[in-house]
């Protein structure tokens, strides 16, 4: 199954949130809206490409739209394998962080 990097997790969570409307542009916006991080479209497609090679997401080409000079969108959806990987990675982080966040916060504040 393999471990997911932080950026890959962000992308997969965005795909979950967006459902049928998950394509590069909306994923980028979702990440920016929720985390404040501005990421490039190229980075998102590169990461999605890696995830697709690992069968964690699948893509389909949408209908051409008028607003994009007739260029279609490439929609992504989360596969069961992807959902498992996301869940496992998130759980790993949570287990590892369990009971430690108070100390981390303390250290971060110079304590």
């Amino acid at each position, binding site marked *: 199954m393999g471990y997911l990097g932080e950026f890959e997790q962000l992308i997969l969570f965005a795909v979950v949130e967006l459902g049928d409307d998950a394509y590069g542009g909306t994923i980028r916006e979702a990440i920016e809206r929720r985390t404040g991080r*501005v990421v490039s*479209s*190229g980075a998102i*497609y590169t990461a999605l490409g890696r995830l697709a090679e690992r069968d964690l997401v699948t893509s389909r080409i949408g209908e051409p739209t008028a607003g994009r000079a007739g260029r279609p*969108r490439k929609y992504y959806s989360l596969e069961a394998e992807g959902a498992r990987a996301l869940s496992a990675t998130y759980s790993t982080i949570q287990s590892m962080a369990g009971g430690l966040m108070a100390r981390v916060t303390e250290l971060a504040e110079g304590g």
Partner: protein
Amino acid sequence: MATDSRVLRLLRRLAALLIRGPEAVFIRADLDDATERDLERGIPMWRAQWRYAVNVLGSALSARPARWRASRLGVSWLDVRIGLRLLVKQPGLTAVAVFALAVGIPVGLIPLHAASAFEAPPPFAEAEQLQVLKNINVATSRWEAPSAYDFVQWREELTAFSALAMTTRGASYNVIAEDGRAAPIRGAEVTASTFDIVRVRPLLGRTLIAADELAGAPRVVVISHDLWQSRLGADPEVLGRSIRIGGVPRTVVGVMPQGFLFPIRDHLWIPLRVTAATDDHERGRPRIVFGRLSDSVSPEEAQAELMAVGQRMAIASPETHGRLRNEVVPFTIGLFGAGKEGLRGEAGFYGFQVLALLVLAIACANVGMLILARTATRSGEIAVRTALGASRTRVVTQMFTESLVFAVLAAGVGLLIADQISSTLFGWLLDALPYWTNFRVTLATVGWALVLAVLSAGLVSVIPALKVTGKAVQLNIQRAASGRSGVRFGGISSALIIADVTIAVAALGVAVGLSDGLTDIQDSRGIQAEQFLFAELRLPQFESGSDAAAFDEGAFELRLREAQQSLLQRLAAEPGVQGVAVGSSLPGMDHPRSGVEVDGIEHSEDFGDIRVSRARVDADFFDAFGQPVLSGRGFDSTELAEDSPAVIVNTGFVDRILSGQNPIGRRVRYATAADEEPGPWYEIVGVVGPLGMDLVDPGRAGMYHPSAPGKLHPLRLAIHVGDDPESFAPRLRALTGEVDATAIVWDPKALDKIVSFDAKIVGWVTTGAMALVGMLLALSGSGTYALMSFTVAQRRREIGIRTALGAQRSNIVRTIAKRALVQLGVGVLLGMAIAGRVLFEFHRAGRIPSQSPLLLAIAMGVGVMLLIGTLACVVPTLRALKIMPTEALRSGA
């Protein structure tokens, strides 16, 4: 699309160029989507564009590259990324190569950039319709200012122009505001049509109108925004206020918008009254006639019509117009007196361009050497890739792209530096140039820089790439396996090292020689100029803008004489003042020149073939400068009249015109045309040494006339006050104020800061040339070091074998150094020969006073290059010797 703008279209093109790979089409479509949504959310356009640009760059760096294939352009993004990685991986090489091209590319651009800046059209609507109408003297090929008669004729007859206007240029007016403060202000007399032609509306009030030009019309003035702010307190009720200009009260009728300083850097505009009858006595004042072409009329059609009118005028008045040819020239070019083609049409321009490109070529040669060295280390990798199926074109393309990366980087760095320094470099010129002239880097310059970057990348990469791919694959792989470079470039590297050393030695030689010539310019005044305070005194009512009727010449002369005598008396009584010289021109300033005839000397048919600098000076002039009269006598107070026949000449006159003969008692007069009445004879009564009449050519012949108080205006003073002369300026102002409250002391400064225009140009060219040779030296030095140390480092294996076989260290060093020293020696000899030749030419032209700097220069050139060469040779050899022989052999280094 609603989200369209010029910037966005440009960014889209950039995206198409930079974002490659299988997802590129989706990424680019998403970029557009994101921008559209940004704008819908109310984000300002500039911010949406900024976000788009950031996204493009981020995507370009992170998107998955296209598969291993050259794109349609032959350049793939992967190659660019490899190039970027190499930049970081080899910082030394990157620094040297970027430095070389960051110097070479902007220098290569200077001529084109300067020409574009000088010829930029004025910032008016449809500026290309603005054309200057010129008279050119066919005999001398010089521009002649048009007369009022010309203007009136052209205005009546030409239909190609919707309007014509005439303006003076280069005039200063003494402006006295209501508070009584006087200050010199640049301004122009213009016909009212000027404002219709430039199509600029006033900020307040009105511009000039035709009625203002009529005789007896109220005296009015339109002022600049700056003048309104600085002298009139930005008074909103300024219209109707009166200011005295050149002694004449004028009513302010309009204020122009901020930044409008037409035609050069002028702050006030007064009506120019033009009638054909005011012709002859006005001729010779610097004026421009310009107009706006009628719609759909081309400059060529206007030119044809002007020629036809000109021919009619030549037939009507052959004595004044028979020798004239007419030209219609774009406005800014017309201001400079250059030909129709502007600077690009000047003969020197291409020479300058070739020189500048030569610097770039040398930079390219040096970078090429470094690339060659780098390529040699990669010959194994390239051989393997070739064996795996990469074509020669593919490999060459990759190497070109790698070079392109740092060429573009270097061009960017170079342009940034050029942008910062060009204002300083040309700043001293700006005062004489129109206000819209700007030497900042423009989009066109960036475009040219990119073209040069591509050309440079081609030049520096193609030879190494062809060389490294030209070898048999088998051999290269074998060599790669044994750890050796497959490329030997002894011949090329030797030639390049020799060329580099030659250039460096020659450059240093010429630089030292030139710097000596520059020092000479400062010294050629023949006085301790840093001990004198220079000041120019002006009294109001003697300005070119004042009406002749309001000006009483006799009364003014009397006033001037009283002011001069009174000021000189007060200065003489001042403690610390050791002397005061008064003259029409002072040492180091521009001196007017005229052709002369000397009694008893044969002259050619061409009158005025002997030209001398001239000045009018007071009786104490030579004493004040501590310059004794070498033979004969000085002026006595009885001969200070305007028509005195006594003149004093300088030693340049005696040497060059009289070939050393005794000048005392010889007669001289100003040359006139054959059909003109000759002027009066003057008698030479004394000889003085060179006194800075020509800083560039100190030996130039010069002649001094005596001048009585009240005859010179403006009055130029050199006050000998010893060290720190500028500290005396406030006292001088105070004394002048006591003598005449309206007198202006113009820009007092130490006399050594006054440098004639010629000398400024020579100084500028010399400084530029020195900077250029400095760059050449740095380029050659770094190139030589890099290549020599690389070739020596390549012989580490050989050094290892020799050490293993028991060779002595001193023997090894000698063997390695031998080849390097031969290369250095040949380069030094060639460089010395070139430097010697160049400096000899300078010496022969009288620019360098002695031979000594020549020897010093060459010695320095040789010394510096020997040092660089020895370091480049010895350091890697010693490093190689420190390695154990077995290690050197095993690593195959």
